[in-house]
């Protein structure tokens, strides 16, 4: 027994690479997870975590590197392959069939059947009841999945994994939409699964949760593996340092501009269940960064400001004049502009030429007696295209054929053409190459210098820290921090963006203590339970 070598890790990926055309999504993904442990995978947005997960799930195929499961080389061509091998992935947004019952959702594709192929509904039902009892949840197995809360949907996903008898369970930001109590319930389930000898991978941005739950932490940055550390021998500060990994403040210098009068005033803006009590100001010449995790409610605030969505209470005013609720026309007339996050879907008409996209927001102004001529459009578009150095063969080139960076410039040109006084820009450099990125940053800096107020939503810490005069941090629909340029460090922003609400945090600390007490488990126990699950 003692002479036997240690069992192979449940999941082992080494130097896995994946590119999409010329874009490298993953350079060298490495993660080694032992059976009977919970392993955290952390990194900034765009570090390559999701790509790695999708390779494990069989949604993507790796270009290079090794991928082993319980010591055996594997290649998954479809999600069915990974499931058959005992890998279950729980995505951030649970994927259930709304029109089918909870029980059917758990068993879809592998329902127990008799010889005739008839589904054994009674067996399905009783197993679902058994799993739910074990998880300690009260969900009616016969109800439709439609209308379940995200937390309950995640429980269904976990029930799926359990009924699959998965040996490797990957949870991609499962707690992003959960309340404190729900997180605790999830963690209790995760620990019991670990104690059965399963391997769990937990992706999260919340460090208190990572430290409370996980045994080991693997850090990724820019598509590369950085290091793996044991939770007991590291600290939040060290992990943040590993994640950020560079001196960030010098990368995106914002020139000093004279800060002028207050342009935008937002007071107690609330939209039930989405964001709450949002108050802030943006002054002329100022760039205000709005940081936070994906799903914190930042884009939703931007949409409400610009009148795309309504809100329940509070007010938005520009230069003291209150803006009408839910009226984009009014917001535009007042001088607001919104450059949305998803430029392909929300910012551009992809089949339209560059020129027509640029003039899209000012067509009324350009037209004479309701008639719009190409000449009038091109005259304006040409000016903006050359100011922003849009690299396109001609103004008549369909904008869908341009690179991401040039597309973004076209969207910016479209809104600058309206001569706004306040620009809201959501993820200004997402999916843009490095060169164009700095061009966009320089442009934003220049615009601020000309007296424009800019509200910049960004998930990239270096960008926020380098560009913003002031940083607002949102978490779960609330502003949880306001930091001046001097105060804004990677650690401070991350902390404000990730800490769970006070009540849950306290109980999690207790849970962490309990978990650490149980940490040094007997290795032969682990082997034992591993064999059980086989």
């Amino acid at each position, binding site marked *: 027994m003692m002479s036997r070598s240690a069992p192979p890790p449940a999941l082992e990926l080494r130097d896995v690479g994946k590119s999409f055309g010329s874009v490298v999504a993953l350079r060298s993904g490495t993660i080694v997870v032992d059976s009977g442990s919970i392993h955290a995978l952390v990194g900034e947005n765009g570090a390559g975590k999701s790509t790695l997960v999708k390779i494990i*799930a*069989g*949604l993507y195929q790796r270009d290079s590197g090794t991928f082993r499961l319980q010591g055996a080389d594997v290649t998954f061509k*479809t*999600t*069915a*392959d*990974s*499931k058959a091998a005992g890998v279950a992935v729980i*995505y951030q947004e649970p*994927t*259930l*069939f*709304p*029109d*089918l019952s909870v029980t*059917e959702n758990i068993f*879809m*594709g*592998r*329902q127990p*059947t008799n010889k005739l*192929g*008839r*589904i054994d509904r009674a067996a399905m039902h009783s197993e679902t*009841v058994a799993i*739910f*009892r*074990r*998880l*300690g*949840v*009260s*969900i*009616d197995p*016969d*109800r*439709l999945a*439609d*209308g*379940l*809360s995200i937390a*309950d949907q995640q429980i269904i996903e976990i029930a799926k994994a359990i009924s699959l008898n998965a040996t490797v369970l990957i949870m991609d930001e499962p707690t992003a939409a959960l309340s404190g109590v729900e997180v605790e319930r999830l963690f*209790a*389930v995760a620990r*019991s699964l670990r*104690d*059965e000898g399963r391997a769990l991978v937990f992706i999260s941005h919340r460090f208190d949760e990572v430290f409370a739950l996980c045994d080991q932490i693997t850090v990724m940055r820019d598509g590369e593996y950085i290091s793996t550390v044991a939770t007991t021998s590291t600290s939040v500060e060290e992990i943040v340092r590993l994640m950020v990994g560079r001196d960030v403040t010098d990368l995106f210098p914002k020139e000093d501009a004279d800060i002028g009068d207050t342009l935008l005033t937002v007071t107690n803006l609330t939209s039930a269940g989405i964001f709450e009590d949002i108050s802030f100001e943006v002054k002329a010449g100022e760039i205000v960064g709005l940081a936070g995790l994906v799903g914190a409610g930042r884009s939703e605030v931007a949409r409400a400001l610009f009148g795309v969505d309504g809100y329940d209470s509070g007010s938005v005013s520009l230069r003291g004049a209150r803006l009408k609720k839910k009226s984009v026309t009014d917001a535009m007339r007042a001088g607001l502009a919104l450059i949305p996050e998803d430029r392909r879907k929300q910012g551009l008409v992809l089949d339209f030429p560059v020129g027509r996209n640029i003039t899209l927001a000012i067509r009324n102004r350009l037209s004479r007696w309701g008639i719009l001529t190409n000449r009038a459009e091109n005259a304006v578009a040409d000016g903006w295209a050359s100011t922003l150095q849009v690299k396109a063969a001609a103004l008549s080139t369909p904008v869908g054929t341009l690179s991401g960076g040039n597309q973004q410039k076209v969207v910016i040109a479209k809104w600058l053409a309206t001569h706004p006084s306040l620009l809201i820009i959501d993820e200004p450099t997402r999916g843009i190459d490095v060169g164009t990125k700095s061009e966009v940053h320089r442009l934003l800096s220049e615009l601020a210098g000309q007296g424009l107020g800019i509200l910049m939503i960004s998930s990239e810490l270096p960008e926020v820290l380098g560009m913003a005069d002031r940083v607002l941090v949102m978490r779960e629909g609330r502003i949880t921090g306001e930091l001046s340029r001097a105060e804004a460090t990677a650690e401070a922003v991350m902390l404000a963006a990730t800490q769970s609400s006070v009540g849950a945090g306290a109980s999690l600390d207790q849970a962490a203590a309990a978990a650490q007490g149980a940490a040094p488990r007997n290795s032969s126990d682990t082997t034992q*339970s591993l064999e*059980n699950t086989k």
Partner: protein
Amino acid sequence: MTTLTETPTPPAPAAPGNAVTRGIAAVFKRRETSIVIAILVVIAAATLVNDQFLLSNDGFRNLLLNPSIYILLSVGVAMVIITRSVDLSVSSTLGLTAYLTGRMFIDFPGIPIIAVFLIGIIFGGFLGLINGALVAYARVPAMVITLGTMYAYRGINVAWAGSNRINPQDMPKGFTSLGTAQILSIPVLTIIAVVVLIALAWYMKNTRGGREFYALGSDPEAAQLYGLNVVKRNLVAFVLCGAMAGLAGVLYTARYGTVDSAAGYGVELTAIGGAVIGGVAISGGVGTLWGAAFGAILLLTIKSALPVLGIQDFWQQAVVGVLIIGAIVLDRVLALRQHKKLLTTKADAS
């Protein structure tokens, strides 16, 4: 397996109430029930005006016979709609198969009737396979693909048949008499349609394959993530739909005896209308084949009842249209109400 250390909270008891009364309530909430009631009301109304509608031999027979071909079409189309596609080409598949059926008897005298049935079904399935392959592999919306094949199949039919016509005397008596034959005063065509309906409805309700149709229609992306074979499901749905239209084509020839290149022209809309009225959601994932079949019966019954009720010919189409729109609006309202209810039960529970 180890169990959770914490004491699990017992599952909340389901809604209170006697199981029997809840069962009865569930039956009455079903779409199929209301359609059946609607059919009975229409029959009763027409019979009150003219008792020949139901009580004469012919009346009773026609009531059962007329919908049989449409039941097959609606059921086939319903399977495709449940997967969030649609098949407009069933009318042309029916027409082409009906003509093929006649040609078989002319070109191969003495061919067994059962062989003609099989060939018709297989040929219809093959036409469905072409639809399915185009939809599944070319990833073009089914609406466009089947609009194209609807014209293409009809075009082939016209080119092949020209101005020729199949006449009853071209076919063996044993085949043409099927159209009027009865067993225990129930028309044979109706029996065939109902047997096929029972088999397919069982398949959709009780097998993995059947449930995957619903899953695919409910959320195609989730189906992909579940590891379901989406391409295969799409193909199977279209093949089954084509096979149903093929069988309907054979029965069409048996029933009417006369087949030209315009056979079954325009029936696809009645087929889809029947499915939609029967509660098959056009957005996929919802509905039953029984509902689709009852929807087709209701449409056909109304069509034959309107003249009896003294409603003029040209109003019939308008009535059918109102019925379809009414069914869709009703669906939407019910779906919203149910969604709201599910949301509130969640709020109560937490």
